[in-house]
């Protein structure tokens, strides 16, 4: 179950010849895979690829009808290894993940598959999380394509081009016996548009065919002497085959323009932004009719020397739009030109920037610099001025930062509140964090965590500090990271090396940060899930002796376990499994049930928290210990007080943390919890009537006094 349902999207996958698919880029990819006769699909979720995994998860019956195997892989490494099926069999397979993080994880399998080479088309779809909104280190997938020698497609960001490149990718892969990587930037994954659909195709070669007549070719095994042979094959056979295919099928495009003395070379993925920048400069229009010639590389690796030479020959200079660094393409083009004695100058990183996303503004200024030097007449529109309004300095003071944080009712929040309180006892703590929702605890108001080094790597990244010391090191890992990699490299490592510190596994029941996908320890009971593995059992199996289970919403329990873990004499890693269901997914799970109960006029109690504005004194300690989005502030209704009071807004889901925090931290008595009863039973109503009779009398007494003196 993912946090978004794609039931509507899934129906679109059934569209046949002549249909119109309206949706996002990533949906076009899924449809194109089915149209290409793919036989197996795998992948690991993560923005912007999650939707692909979610759609296929929701589309299991369609996949079954077609005879396509889909796996939500345990990690990107598992997904990449899945491509091994295409080494010996003419099976088309596709895998997908967030890059470069996913490619890092996958690279072992990827390099081996690339060395062996493939018979069936092997496509790797990478969601390039680079630039605005990215949550990972800023690197390029390009390096992996180069080092393992797999071809890299970078299509123009519209649904037709993306879908086409999926189909071409399979063909290229088969023509050159090489896996092909299809790179999609975040905006391209989420861009909406229309795709003219074709019928889905059943795979031509099935897993059953393979198992009935297994094929074995010892030359495909990456061991000496074949590993040497593979390298030779790569450069002597596979590369030239790829170059021929790309040239013959014209995967790259040349757009002629009147000003032949200059030209622009751009990867397909950046073409639309470039055209907009050219419009702003006055050398193209809304339909892409440019006055400067453009070479659009829908394949960015390998470069096609002859195409580059044909485009550059006779030009004084070309401008290369290459995002990210190192500047592999620029170096490569310069090398091609030099070897062939073509004197064309290559501009690029010098007029744009070495690092960072190539925004339209950046492209515009780079274009102006380049054209100003080499073809000034191409510039027909002056730069926009005065776009900034007045008062900008004052505005900078008035716009607060709004970082991402834990959601309303998040089960991880109370655990970090407990850690905040434990820091009051032990002093500041060294905490190695992991990838996942809990990484938000590194920001305000918790400010917990010293490093983040990778998915499932929280515990092992504390290794150097896990010897025996008076004050112990802590590390945090989510259940997503635990199953991705952490069980072996975190827990196994800690047991074998007798780590003395504390490891907390936050068990929220899902791979939550990526959109709420299932993991082996998900407790939910649905048809297609048979196994529900307990994390505690897994820990015991891995040899951990000291394990405490706590429920995150019970702060006292967490405090007790943390205190014990910090002080126990027990040797070896101290494991705390902190359990609490992801609230986003919980709400999605229970909301339909609640609606159903209400529809059937059954009793239902809604819980939520609130704060009495007249007892709140506005010191906001509660907010500093919680940070819940539903816990905020409002004007103090008391004319004598200046500081705003805390308040709970209606998005509150009644998780109970407010009360727990108020208790555990001995804060203030302003919090209340309300139970709002729908469709009350007879007992509810009778009790309420009796209570309000007595309470009403007593309150009236107080009111008489208050009214007497009111003014």
């Amino acid at each position, binding site marked *: 179950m993912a946090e978004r349902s794609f039931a509507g999207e899934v129906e679109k996958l059934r569209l046949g010849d002549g249909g119109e698919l309206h949706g996002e880029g990533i949906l076009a990819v899924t449809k194109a895979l089915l149209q290409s006769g793919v036989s197996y699909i795998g992948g690991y979720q993560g923005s912007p690829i999650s939707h692909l995994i979610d759609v296929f998860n929701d589309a299991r019956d369609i996949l079954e009808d077609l005879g396509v195997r889909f796996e939500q892989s345990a990690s990107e490494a598992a997904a990449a290894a899945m491509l091994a099926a295409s080494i010996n069999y003419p099976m088309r397979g596709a895998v997908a993940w967030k890059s470069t993080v996913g490619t890092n994880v996958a690279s072992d399998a990827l390099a081996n598959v690339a060395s062996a080479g493939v018979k069936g088309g092997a496509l790797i779809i990478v969601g390039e999380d680079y630039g605005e*909104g*990215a*949550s990972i280190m800023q690197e390029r997938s390009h390096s992996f394509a180069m080092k393992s020698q797999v071809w890299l497609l970078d299509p123009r960001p519209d649904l037709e081009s993306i879908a086409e490149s999926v189909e071409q990718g399979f063909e290229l892969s088969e023509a050159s016996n090489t896996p092909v990587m299809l790179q999609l930037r*975040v905006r391209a994954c*989420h861009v909406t*548009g229309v795709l003219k659909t074709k019928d889905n195709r059943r795979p031509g070669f099935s897993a059953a065919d393979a198992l009935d007549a297994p094929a074995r070719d010892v030359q495909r095994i990456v061991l000496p002497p074949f590993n040497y042979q593979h390298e030779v094959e790569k450069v002597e056979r596979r590369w030239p085959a790829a170059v021929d295919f790309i040239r013959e099928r014209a995967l790259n495009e040349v757009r002629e323009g009147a000003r032949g003395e200059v030209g622009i070379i751009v990867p397909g993925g950046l073409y639309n932004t470039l*055209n907009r920048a050219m419009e702003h400069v006055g050398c193209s*229009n*809304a*339909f892409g009719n440019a006055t400067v010639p453009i070479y659009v590389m829908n394949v960015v690796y390998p470069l096609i020397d002859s195409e580059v030479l044909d485009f550059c020959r006779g030009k004084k200079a070309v401008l290369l739009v290459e995002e990210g660094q190192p500047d592999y393409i620029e170096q490569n083009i310069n090398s091609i030109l030099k070897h062939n004695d073509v004197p064309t100058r290559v501009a690029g990183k010098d007029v744009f920037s070495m690092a960072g996303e190539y925004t*339209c503004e950046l492209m515009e200024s780079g274009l102006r610099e380049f054209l100003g030097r080499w073809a000034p007449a191409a510039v027909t529109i002056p730069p926009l001025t005065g*776009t900034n*309004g007045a008062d900008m300095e*004052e*505005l*900078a003071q*008035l*716009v*607060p930062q*709004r970082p*991402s*944080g*834990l*959601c309303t009712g998040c089960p991880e929040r109370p655990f970090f509140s407990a850690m*905040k309180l434990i820091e009051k006892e032990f002093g500041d703590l060294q905490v190695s964090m992991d990838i996942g929702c809990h990484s938000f605890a590194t920001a305000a*108001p918790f400010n917990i965590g010293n490093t983040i080094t990778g998915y499932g790597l929280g515990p092992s990244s504390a290794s150097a500090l896990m010897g025996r010391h008076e004050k112990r090191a802590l590390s945090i890992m989510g259940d997503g990271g635990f199953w991705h990699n952490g069980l072996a490299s975190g827990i196994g490592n800690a047991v074998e090396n007798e780590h003395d510190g504390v490891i907390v596994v936050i068990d929220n029941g899902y791979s939550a940060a990526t959109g709420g996908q299932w993991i082996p320890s998900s407790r939910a009971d649905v048809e297609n899930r048979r196994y529900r593995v307990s994390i505690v059992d897994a820990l015991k199996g891995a040899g951990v002796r000291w394990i405490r289970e706590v429920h995150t919403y019970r702060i006292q329990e967490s405090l007790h376990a943390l205190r014990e873990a910090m002080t126990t004499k027990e040797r070896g890693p101290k494991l705390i499994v902190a359990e609490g269901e992801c609230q986003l997914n919980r709400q999605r799970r229970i909301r339909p049930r609640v609606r159903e109960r209400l529809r059937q006029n059954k009793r239902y109690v809604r819980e939520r928290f*609130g704060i*009495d504005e*007249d007892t709140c004194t*506005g*010191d906001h*300690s509660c*907010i*500093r210990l919680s*940070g819940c989005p539903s816990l905020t*502030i409002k004007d103090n209704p*008391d004319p*004598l007080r*200046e*500081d705003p009071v805390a308040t709970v807004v*209606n998005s509150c889901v009644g998780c109970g943390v407010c*009360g727990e925090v*108020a*208790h555990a931290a*001995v*804060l*203030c*008595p302003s*919090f*209340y*919890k*309300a139970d709002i*009863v*729908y469709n009350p039973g007879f007992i509810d109503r009778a009790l*309420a009537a009796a*209570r309000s009779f007595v*309470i009403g009398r*007593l309150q009236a007494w107080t009111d008489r006094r208050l009214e007497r003196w*009111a*003014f």
Partner: protein
Amino acid sequence: MTEAAKPLKVAILAMGGQGGGVLANWLIEAAERSGCLAQSTAVPGVAQRTGATVYYLEIVPGGKNAEPAPVLALMPVPGHVDVVVAGELAEAGRALQRGLITPQRTAAIVSTHRDYAIDEKSAPADGRVDSERLAAIVSGNARQYVGFDMADLAEETGSVISSVLLGAIAGAGALPIGREVCEAVIRAMGVAVEANLRGFDAGYNRAQGQPGRDDAVAEPPDTAIVHKDIQALLDRVREAFPEEAQDVLTAALRRLVDYQDLNYAKDYLDRLAPVLDLDGAEHGYRLTVTTARYLALGMTYEDVIRVADLKTRAKRFERVRSEVQAEAGQVVAFEEFMHPRVEEICDVMPARIGAWCLAAPSMKRLIGVFCRKGRRIRTTSLPGFLLLYAIAGLRRLRRTTLRYRTEINALERWLALLVDIAPDDYDLAVEVAECRRLVKGYGETHARGLAQYDRLVAAIHDHRGEPDAAASIRTLRDQALAIADIDSG
């Protein structure tokens, strides 16, 4: 290239979970139904978890089925955005900061409500930015500005902010999308149709210039009969105190009578009188006003009696019901989270006994048994209510309690100090008065505030006589206010 082929560029600035994606989808569908070519994209990623994010749309009027198809871009460009939709005021400010709102080009459709950022919320005092100024800057720098509180309107209509925003976009005529098309799109989605249509309608009408709730004129105060003793007190204030202090004194007297009784309010005025004697119009009566405020707050300190009193009142029951949006007649139960420490228990004992208990370790331990865990008290049940009601009844004995003695002594010392300082250094005396702002909260927070206050008093003695003593103390006080008990960055 014709002008008609030019895309309209729309940026939606939203916070994760606010429904920006839904709004973008509605706009795309409405645009396509209106014969436009439309495209949207976004970089949601982790911003889905409460962070700020931008959805970007390009809409080509009459561009549906255009051949060749226009090349649409995927990110907003400063200076080239026609419509900015902001689901919150600070996000509108961010749009202006990024150059997405420009005076030459942009229509800004803004919900003017504030969703406070974590830094604003977690400040120990008041960390909020100036919203009025923010709204003024945004509206002053947009070609067209349609701004009103859409969160409020969404709540009023039982819908969500995205439907009100859609209504405001249509109502402002910012895009070639009419009312009927939008309504058809909402219907076609088939989720919460009626609520969304109500929200849409409300947003549409407000954008068309119809008045709304926040434009309503405040009702005049009711003129109920005032008790003659109260009237005497009010007359005394009117005669003896300057104009500048009237508002704060009225509020103070109301609070004191509500807290204790009429005599308590008289005591208050008696304590304030010596301060007024030292004050004058040349100072604008700043000392009197400031002292009046903090003396009233100081005398109405939050002890368990006060908390129990407020928690059991009929008006509070009503407020809770309305806050949790209970329907009329719906059964609502609620419970309180109390965790009094030994100190708070001893505070309400008669002064001597309380002091003895606090001093005797055995007694402290004994009482401590009852304070180890926080208590949940169900105020809507009879045992819970009666317990709190009984505690509230201790009000009559308040003047005999330990806490009363402690608080009043502290206030007397504070008053004495500022009365002592005022003739020599008026500004410093005002700062002394202001220092009481540090004393607030409960339990440890309160104790911490008191400790900070004591440190400031010590500093006051050190700085007294210096020419810029007042400025030094103000700096120290601001620093103290900014330091939180629990670090927040």
